[in-house]
């Protein structure tokens, strides 16, 4: 599973019907490993592109995939600013940085760029953006006070008490944020586990962590 | 056991070009610093491949530049005492000593080892590391290490240079016995004439990478021409003498040079023939047979050659029986005594002035 799902998934798996072993790594690494015959039954990707890539490889016998979770994008900071205005962000930054995931390789970074671009802010933020190798690193920069702001998932903001959400991006400003699940095996246990993941009780756990159901 | 060397090698600014044959016994390589002694020995050992030529050990070609034969050192079955000790720094002295026998898969010859260790005074050093040894001690260990590997050929590069006279006196008789009884060939590098005369059957005189002279010790060192190479003090003759009797007062009676000689106890059996070196400077001439003097050895002789040296001295060659002696005297004495070719007179040699170290058995 994508490393950023760790935490919530550990909670979820407590009640799983079967014994689940999770390998947390980057989506790219996992996709490639599955293509090379990794003994994986279910692949949870933070990123639809690597699921599509894996499907193209055609290296697994069975392959069914479906959207799994959704998330929202937020701007976080360290202190609560009730009258925060996103438009002033370039000025607020002054000598400081906005942390986002890498704008081409990290999903949250890609969404962040899309959002900021459609809001007309991307250009004016040039040179003030820190790109990290995963979204949690962006979060960490804010948590440590190294960067005053970051664009992350809402779920990340919930997970870390040191940060507060200053702004929620509207879903239409960026492509839909979807986690995708690929079922790679026809084993009954895999089927059961997938069903478990979609069960209402499990969904509730995900929601508690800030995730959202995929819009129909 | 024998070694045949015929090699040429070139270092920047130095050309080696030598050819000699070393039979069983000791062949001394003698010559000034930088003459090429070590280079020759290294070639025989197989540690240096000369540019051209060939080397045979016991008739077996171990190196030949024309056929590209070059036997590895470990296959040449030799023992090498390096000019610098080259002990294994990570092993105790004892381990250094047992290295050769182990490597050759020989059973431990404890008696032999004890003998060597005692002779070289290494008993107290066995547990030490080489780094905790004095210069002379290192050299002794290196010698012991080479001896203990029981080689067919021994290459000794100034093995006694760092040792005191007393210690040399302990080691030389052993090397003599090795020469006489073990049937091995030794190449022996030394700057000490007395060592060479005592040990060597044959001398290869080197100069600037060339063989200046080669032959038996008697030939090379009795040659009046060799005097310039050997230096004033070392010129002398070698004569053969037969052991007649060992007397209870510690003197050995010998017959040689047509005369009866008395020397301090010579380590040889009655009837054996020994080699005596008598330095030219140790021989005094007298017109009449001297009486009432402390010298026991008076040899009647005939002058066969008179040769002026540089300086105030001259060299007198004497025929005594079938052998000859050299005497170095001043020209003033020669004039006073009116010496002439063919004249008969008496050579006086103090018994003890025939040094122990100059007796080759």
């Amino acid at each position, binding site marked *: 599973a994508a*490393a*950023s799902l*760790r*935490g919530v998934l550990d909670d979820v798996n407590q009640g799983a019907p079967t014994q689940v*072993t*999770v*390998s*947390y*790594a980057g989506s790219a*690494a*996992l996709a*490639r*490993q599955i*293509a*090379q*015959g*990794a*003994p994986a039954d279910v692949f949870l990707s933070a990123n639809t592109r690597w699921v599509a890539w894996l499907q193209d490889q055609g*290296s697994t016998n069975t392959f069914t995939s479906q959207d799994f979770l959704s998330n929202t994008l937020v701007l976080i900071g360290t202190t609560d600013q009730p009258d925060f205005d996103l438009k002033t962000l370039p000025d607020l930054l002054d000598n400081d940085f906005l942390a986002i995931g890498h704008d081409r390789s990290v999903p949250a970074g890609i969404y962040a760029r899309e959002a900021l671009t459609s809001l007309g802010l991307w250009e004016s933020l040039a040179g003030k953006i820190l790109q990290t190798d*995963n979204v*949690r690193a962006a*979060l*960490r920069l804010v*948590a440590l006070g190294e960067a005053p702001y970051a664009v992350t998932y809402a779920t*990340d903001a919930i*997970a*870390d*008490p*040191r940060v507060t959400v200053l702004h929620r991006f509207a879903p239409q400003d960026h492509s839909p944020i979807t986690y995708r699940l690929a079922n790679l095996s026809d084993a009954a246990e895999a089927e059961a586990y997938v069903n478990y993941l979609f069960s209402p009780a499990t969904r509730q756990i995900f929601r508690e962590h800030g995730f959202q159901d995929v819009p129909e | 056991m024998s070694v045949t060397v015929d090699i040429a090698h070139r270092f920047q600014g130095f050309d080696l070009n030598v050819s000699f044959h070393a039979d069983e016994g000791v062949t001394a390589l003698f010559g000034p610093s930088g003459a090429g002694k070590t280079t020759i020995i290294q070639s025989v*050992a*197989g*540690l240096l491949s000369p540019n051209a030529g060939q080397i045979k050990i016991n008739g077996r070609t171990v190196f030949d530049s024309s056929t590209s034969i070059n036997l*590895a*050192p*470990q296959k*040449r*079955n*030799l*023992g*090498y005492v*390096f000019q*610098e000790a*080259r*002990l*294994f*720094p*990570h*092993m*105790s002295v004892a*381990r250094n000593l047992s*290295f*050769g026998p182990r*490597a*050759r898969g020989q059973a431990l010859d404890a008696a032999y080892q004890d003998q060597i260790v005692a002779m070289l005074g290494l008993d107290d050093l066995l547990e030490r*590391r080489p780094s905790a040894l004095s210069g002379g001690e290192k050299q002794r260990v290196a010698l012991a*290490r*080479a001896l203990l*590997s029981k080689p067919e050929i021994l*290459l000794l590069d100034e093995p006694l240079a760092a040792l005191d006279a007393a210690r040399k006196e302990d080691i030389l008789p052993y090397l003599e016995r090795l020469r006489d009884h073990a049937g091995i060939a030794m190449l022996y590098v030394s700057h000490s004439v007395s060592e060479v005369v005592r040990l060597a059957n044959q001398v290869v005189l080197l100069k600037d990478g060339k063989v200046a002279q080669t032959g038996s010790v008697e030939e090379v060192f009795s040659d009046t021409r060799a005097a310039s190479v050997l230096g004033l003090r070392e010129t002398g003759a070698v004569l053969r003498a037969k052991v007649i009797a060992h007397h209870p007062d510690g003197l050995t009676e010998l017959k040689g040079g047509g005369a009866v000689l008395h020397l301090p106890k010579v380590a040889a059996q009655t009837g054996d023939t020994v080699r005596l070196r008598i330095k030219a400077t140790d021989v005094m001439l007298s017109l009449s047979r001297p009486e009432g003097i402390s010298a026991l050895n008076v040899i009647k002789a005939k002058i066969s050659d008179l040769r002026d040296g540089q300086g105030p001295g001259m060299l007198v060659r004497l025929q005594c029986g079938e052998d000859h002696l050299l005497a170095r005297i001043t020209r003033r004495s020669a004039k006073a005594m009116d010496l002439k070719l063919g004249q008969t007179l008496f050579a006086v040699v103090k018994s003890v002035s025939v040094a122990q170290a100059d007796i080759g058995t």
Partner: protein
Amino acid sequence: MSWLAEFLGPEGFAAMRLSIWVSLWATLLSLPLALWVAHLLVRKRFWGRELLNIVVHLPLVLPPVVTGYLLLVTFGRRAPVGQFLEQSFGLLLAFRWTGAALAAAIMGFPLMVRAIRLALESVDPKLEQAAATLGASRARIYMTVTLPLMLPGVIAGAVLAFAKALGEVGATITFVSNIPGQTQTLPSAIYAMLQIPGEEPMAFRLVIVSTLIAVIALVVSELLARRARNGSV
């Protein structure tokens, strides 16, 4: 040990055990090869020597992910070499601890070879010559003279490789993934934990354990090296 298991949690404890195991194997297995490669690089003149030198250094130069990626496409279960090894020897590397050991060994290899090379270069050939004149075969000379004399360097190389193996994550996680109990080493576990806000304390527990293991390895190596220098025979 139980307090340690408690301190680290079952996953962390398993990761620790696996990491020690993997690092030891990586170090021990690469040692003979490193000795051989160092020997080739120092003592032999052959065509392709410089190439070998470069190949040995590559894992250091390339980002670990790349090394992991190359390992995956070479030794993966669908990859030619991986399939060959699996079919011929039943040796499975991908997604096993064996693969983690391979990754760690390869990442530590340049360090090990360099240390051994330096040590070999400072061995005085005159001593090997002396051994040869005493009748020792090449193999014997190597075992009794060369190797003991370069032992401090060999130990240094082994420690570097072991330490590197303890810290290696990029290539390992890319090659064999991060499967708890199977391929999740200490650094992979630390990596995973750092993904969760608030898990830093647990991550730092693992870091402390990792450091402790390294300290033990270092101290042992220094003792061994001292013994080697004072001579062990």
